[in-house]
């Protein structure tokens, strides 16, 4: 039995867009502080274009929809977050297609493949003050929880918590990847904008699942 369907992806996309817009002030000021001030605009543009794809996505299987979203984001967002998020969706879609989505473990594996694509594209890892400080721990937690056959509610709660921790962890880091890598010590005390938006996205999707 398939655990993800395209209708859910579309619902999630809408919820994500809402979350991003609600967090305009936060996202914008984080990227102003240690970046170039466009992260919110980039994320909003990405979320917006996915909204416009609803009709096109609906007939597709979930894996194909995710892949298509990735392709679209690749040619829409730009900046650093564009190719990274695009790689995530394309890879996750590809892995779902290969392995199926009939268990939480398979979804966790697909998620992990997406995160791995980001890691490779960005040549970054945990501790470099990027979105990966959220995504890598979340991916590990997801894999672990799914392997341990936790209940979906517990999985979601864990992921929300892990994302939050990861996001907060970026605050005290010096950046060694991305635009903030120019700042040295001055980046300390500021949360990474990409980490913040990924945390918000994970929270939004998990909350959707929880409230299903």
């Amino acid at each position, binding site marked *: 039995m398939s655990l993800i369907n395209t209708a859910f992806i579309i619902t999630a996309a809408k919820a994500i867009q809402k979350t991003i817009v609600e967090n305009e002030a936060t996202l914008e000021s984080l990227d102003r502080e*240690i970046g170039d001030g466009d992260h919110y605009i980039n994320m909003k543009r990405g979320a917006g274009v996915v909204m416009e794809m609803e009709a096109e996505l609906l007939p597709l299987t979930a894996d194909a929809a995710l892949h298509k979203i990735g392709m679209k984001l690749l040619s829409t967002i730009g*900046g650093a977050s*564009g*190719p990274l998020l695009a790689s995530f969706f394309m890879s996750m879609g590809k892995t779902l297609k290969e392995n199926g989505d009939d268990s939480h473990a398979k979804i966790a594996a697909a998620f992990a493949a997406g995160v791995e694509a980001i890691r490779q594209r960005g040549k970054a890892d945990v501790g470099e003050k990027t979105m990966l400080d959220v995504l890598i721990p979340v991916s590990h937690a997801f894999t672990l929880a799914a392997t341990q056959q936790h209940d979906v509610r517990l999985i979601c709660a864990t992921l929300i918590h892990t994302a939050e921790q990861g996001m907060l962890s970026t605050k005290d880091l*010096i950046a060694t990847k991305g635009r903030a890598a120019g700042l040295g010590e001055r980046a300390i005390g500021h949360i990474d904008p990409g980490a913040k938006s990924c945390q918000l996205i994970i929270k939004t999707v998990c909350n959707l699942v929880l409230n299903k």
Partner: protein
Amino acid sequence: MKKFINHVDDLLVESLSGFAAAHSDLVQLHLEPHYLTRKHKALDKVAIISGGGSGHEPLHSGYIGYGMLDAACPGHVFTSPTPDQMLAAAEYVHAGKGVLFIVKNYSGDVMNFEMAAEMLPFESATVLTSDDVAVNNSTYTTGRRGVAGTMIVEKCVGSLAETGANLQACKTFGDKVNSNIASMGVALTSCTVPAAGRPTFDIDHTELEMGVGIHGEPGRRREAMREADAIVKDLVAAIMEDFNMRGLHAEGSEALLLVNGFAGTPLMELYLIYNTAAKLFAKHGITVARSLVGNYTTALDMAGASITLCLLDEEIKQHWDNAVHTPALRWKI
């Protein structure tokens, strides 16, 4: 924010349209995906393509034309363009000898161009420009940012490509020119990203931002505003320190001195900066053999300037001097 715009979402296309119309003898605009090419496609040479976030005009579109770029891909303001733009531009200008991408070293630009290169159905190479010495600590593994020196790389490589040099030669030369360049900038005010509608950073009238990036990224440190000579002295010192650190012998060398405005600083002040910088470099035993002063790599509406020194050997000097005919740089033609 007070700007000449209609709707923020239309700014880019309207501005590109105006640019293409004003220079219709030289360039052609292609939309969806957005890219600009020379009006007359060059034949039998390596295609030189650059691009990056908008807001740095005349970089890069202003450098399309004979002796410089074949195409440029403009992203949204301060946001790297996307791979489909580079792919379409490359398809259009490729003349059978491969494509050289000239990319400013930012994660976003690097990744988007990289993905384009991977998808490209023909040979390509990339020169990453990384002249900004503000980011000088080797622990920051992303490496240095590409700033105003980028246009020097574009000019020199563009000239070499015109001679029919092959892709590898262009790539090698581009890397060499890049490694001969060091830049350092300072901001007196912040830029305002139109879609954000407010200044990227707050800065008091008693402060300056030393080592600022061309996107208004914070620099080395916030310092007290002071007289021009003292500011220029620090910029020049940072540049000299960088050449020394990298074991490049600036002393005794000829050089191109570029004093670049970020858009909000008048020419009068840029020439004053040049005056002091040229004297300081001379004291370091450098012969300023070529000069350029003006707004060549801007940061939206930021008041501020950067100093770029490019060490010249005969080869670089020759390619700098060769004819160029673009909207923003033109000589001998």
